[in-house]
C-alpha cells in the first residue's frame, strides 16, 4: 500500500509540475505577444516573380459550401497563369462532383481530382494523390468551408521566397461565431490560439504550427520528405515536425485571416476534438524521441516542440490526476504529504481546463479590439470535463493505433451553412 501511495503522490507532483510548465509557457507567450518584439511576416514584400501555386481543397460531400470557396478562389488577385486550383473530391456521394465539373468547364485553372473506387479515403490520402498532379511550386490548402480574402494566396505564397520556410500558416476566424454557446467559445479560444499563441511562437523562433488549412507548404520539400503518412490523421502537425526536424521552419501569417465554419453542434465538436486529439497524439508517439534527439532544433525549440506535442495528452493527464486524487482521498492521503503540497495541488487544480488559459485569451481579445466578448471567459468552465473526456478518448485511439498498427479512417466535420 505504501508503494501505491508513494506512486500516486509522485504522479500528483509530476502533474503539478507539468501544468505549471504549461502555465509558464502560456504566460511567456502572453507577455511576448502583448509587449514583445513582433517578428515581421513577409506580407510587405512586393515581387512580380511569384511562385506557381496549386491550391488544394479537400472535399467530401461539400455541396453546401463548394461554390462559396471556389468563387472566392476565382476572385483571387493571384496571377491566373501562375495559379491552379485542385478541389479534391474524396468519394463524395452528393452533388460535389457535378459542381466541380461545372467550375472546371468555366475556368481552365480549376482542375478537380475525383477520388472514387478503391482509393483510400482521408485528407492525407487525398493530399498525397493531389501532390502527384499538382504543378505549383507552392501548395496552399483550404478546407472546403473556408472563405479566403482576395489577396490571401499572395500573402501566403510570398513567404516561400525565404528558402528556410517550409510551411506557412494563417489565422482561422469562425464566421458563425454568434450562432450559439459552442461557436462563441470556439471563437474566443481561436483568438487566444492564433492572435497570441501562434504569433508568440513565431516571434520567439519556437515552433508555430502548420494547421492544415489557411496555410501551405513547399511541394518539393514535402515530396522530398516522403509526403504524408496515411496512418496519421493530423497530417498538419506531422508536417510541422517533419519540417523542423529537417531544418525548415513554419512561418505564421497573422495578417492572413480567413473565415471558417466552426462546429455548431456539441456532437460534431466532440468528434472533431477526438479526431484532432487522436491525430495529434499519433504525431506525439512518432516524433517525441526524434524531437529530443534532433540536432536541427535548439533547446527552446525542443522544449516548445515537446510541450506542443503533449498538448492533447494534457487532458488525459488531468483525467488521470482526477482519478489519482480521488484514490488518494479514499486512502486518507488528501493532504498529500504536507499542507504545502496541498496548496500546490490546488494551484494546479485551478489551472486545469482549456488549451489556452484565460489570461491568454483575455489578452488576445484586447488585441483583437473585442469588448463584451471577455464576459464569456467564465463559461469556458463548461467545456472543462467535455474536453477532458473527448481529448482522452482521442489519446486512447492513438494508443490503440500505435499498438495494433491499424489503418485509420477519416471522419469529416459536418457543415452547417445553407447552400
Amino acid at each position, binding site marked *: 500500500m505504501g508503494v501505491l501511495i508513494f506512486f500516486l503522490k509522485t504522479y500528483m507532483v509530476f502533474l503539478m509540475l507539468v501544468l505549471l510548465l504549461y502555465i509558464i509557457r502560456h504566460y511567456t507567450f502572453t507577455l511576448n505577444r*502583448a509587449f514583445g518584439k513582433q517578428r515581421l511576416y513577409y506580407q510587405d514584400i512586393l515581387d512580380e516573380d511569384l511562385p506557381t501555386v496549386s491550391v488544394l481543397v479537400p472535399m467530401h460531400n461539400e455541396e453546401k459550401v463548394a461554390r462559396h470557396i471556389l468563387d472566392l478562389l476565382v476572385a483571387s488577385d493571384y496571377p491566373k497563369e501562375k495559379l491552379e486550383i485542385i478541389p479534391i473530391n474524396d468519394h463524395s456521394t452528393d452533388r460535389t462532383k457535378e459542381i466541380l465539373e461545372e467550375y472546371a468547364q468555366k475556368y481552365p485553372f480549376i482542375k478537380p481530382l475525383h477520388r472514387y473506387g478503391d482509393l483510400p479515403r482521408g485528407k492525407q490520402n487525398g493530399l498525397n494523390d493531389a501532390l502527384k498532379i499538382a504543378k505549383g511550386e507552392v501548395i496552399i490548402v483550404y478546407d472546403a468551408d473556408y472563405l479566403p480574402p482576395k489577396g490571401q494566396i499572395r500573402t501566403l505564397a510570398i513567404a516561400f521566397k525565404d528558402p528556410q520556410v517550409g510551411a506557412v500558416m494563417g489565422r482561422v476566424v469562425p464566421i458563425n461565431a454568434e450562432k450559439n454557446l*459552442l461557436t462563441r467559445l470556439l471563437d474566443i479560444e481561436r483568438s487566444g490560439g492564433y492572435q497570441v499563441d501562434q504569433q508568440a511562437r513565431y516571434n520567439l523562433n519556437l515552433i508555430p504550427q502548420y494547421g492544415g488549412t489557411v496555410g501551405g507548404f513547399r511541394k518539393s520539400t514535402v515530396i522530398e520528405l516522403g509526403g504524408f503518412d496515411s496512418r496519421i490523421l493530423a497530417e498538419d502537425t506531422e508536417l510541422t515536425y517533419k519540417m523542423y526536424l529537417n531544418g525548415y521552419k513554419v512561418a505564421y501569417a497573422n495578417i492572413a485571416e480567413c473565415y471558417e465554419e466552426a462546429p455548431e453542434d456539441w*456532437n460534431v465538436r466532440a468528434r472533431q476534438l477526438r479526431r484532432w486529439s487522436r491525430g495529434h497524439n499519433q504525431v506525439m508517439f512518432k516524433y517525441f524521441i526524434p524531437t529530443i534527439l534532433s540536432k536541427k532544433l535548439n533547446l527552446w525549440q525542443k522544449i516548445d516542440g515537446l510541450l506542443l506535442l503533449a498538448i492533447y495528452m494534457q487532458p488525459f493527464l488531468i483525467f488521470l490526476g*482526477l482519478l489519482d486524487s480521488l484514490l488518494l482521498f479514499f486512502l486518507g492521503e*488528501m493532504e498529500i504529504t504536507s499542507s504545502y503540497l496541498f*496548496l500546490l495541488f490546488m494551484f494546479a487544480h485551478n489551472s486545469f481546463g482549456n488549451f489556452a488559459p484565460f489570461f491568454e485569451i483575455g489578452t488576445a481579445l484586447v*488585441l483583437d479590439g473585442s469588448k463584451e466578448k*471577455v464576459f464569456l471567459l467564465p463559461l469556458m*468552465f463548461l467545456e472543462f470535463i467535455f474536453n477532458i*473526456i473527448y481529448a482522452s478518448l482521442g489519446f486512447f485511439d492513438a494508443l490503440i493505433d500505435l499498438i495494433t498498427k491499424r489503418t485509420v479512417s477519416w471522419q469529416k466535420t459536418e457543415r452547417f451553412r445553407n447552400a
Partner: protein
Amino acid sequence: MKSMASKQAYSKIFEVEKPVIGYARFGRVLKFNKYLFMLQLTLLVVVFEFLVIFFLEDYFKALSDITRKILEGSYTASYKFLSFKLEYSIPHGRLPTLQESFIYLLVSSLSLLFLISRFNPLSKYISAWLIYIAFVYFVSSFYFVFFLDSFPYTERDFAVLYILQQTGVFLFIPILLALSLSLFTFSWLNLLLNAITIALSLMYSSVFGGLRYIVFAYTLKSFSYIHMPAMFFLFGPLIDFIYIVSFYSLCLYMTIKLLQRRQEAFYQWGF
C-alpha cells in the same frame, strides 16, 4: 480667396461610400510600461498577501463563531498552520447507512449508464459534467458500501482540509489576478482597477467560502460523509476558479471601456 459666404452656395451634401480601411489588428502590441507592470505586480501581491495573512486568523475565528451559532452541536478546535492558529467549529458528522450508500450507488450507476447511453438527449457538455458528478458519487457510494469502516476522515479532518483549501484560495487570488491583470499598464487607473478587482475577489471569496463551509458542515452532519468527495472534487477549488475568472473578465471589460476610447493610448504597432 473665397469667403465663407461662397461656401454656402455649394452646401449640398453628397454621400459617397466610405472606404473600408482594415485596421492592422494583426500587428497590434499593447502599450507597455514596464515600471508600472513591476510596480503593480509587486504592490498588488505584497499588499494583498499581507492583508490575507493579517486577517487569516480573524477570518477563521469569525467563521468559527458564526458556525457555532448556526449549527447546533458544534464544537470548537484549532489547527496550527505554519505560525497561524486557525480556529474552526464543526458539528459531528455521520457515516452513511448501508441503505443510503446503496441507494446512492444505484442512482449514480444508473445515471452513469444513462448518460453514456445513446438515449441521452442532453447536450454533450452538460452530459460531460453530469458524468463527472455521477462518477464522483459512484466512487464515493461504492466505497461506503464495501469499505464503510475504513473511511479515513472525521468532520475534524474535513474542517482542517477545508481551512487549507480556503487559505490556498485566499493566497492564490492576489498572485493569479496580479499576474494576469498587471499586463495592462495604460495608466495609473489600471493599478486602481486591478486593486479593486483583487479586493472584490477576496471579499467575494470570504463570503462564498464561509457560506460553503456552513452548508458543507451541515451536509456532513445531516446527510453523511458520502458527500465529502463531492465537496472537494465538485464544489472545491474548481468553483473558486469561476468567480476569479469572472472578476478578471469584469476588470478587463472596465479596462477596455475606460481606455479604448483613445486607441492611441492603448495600442502601438508591432509591425
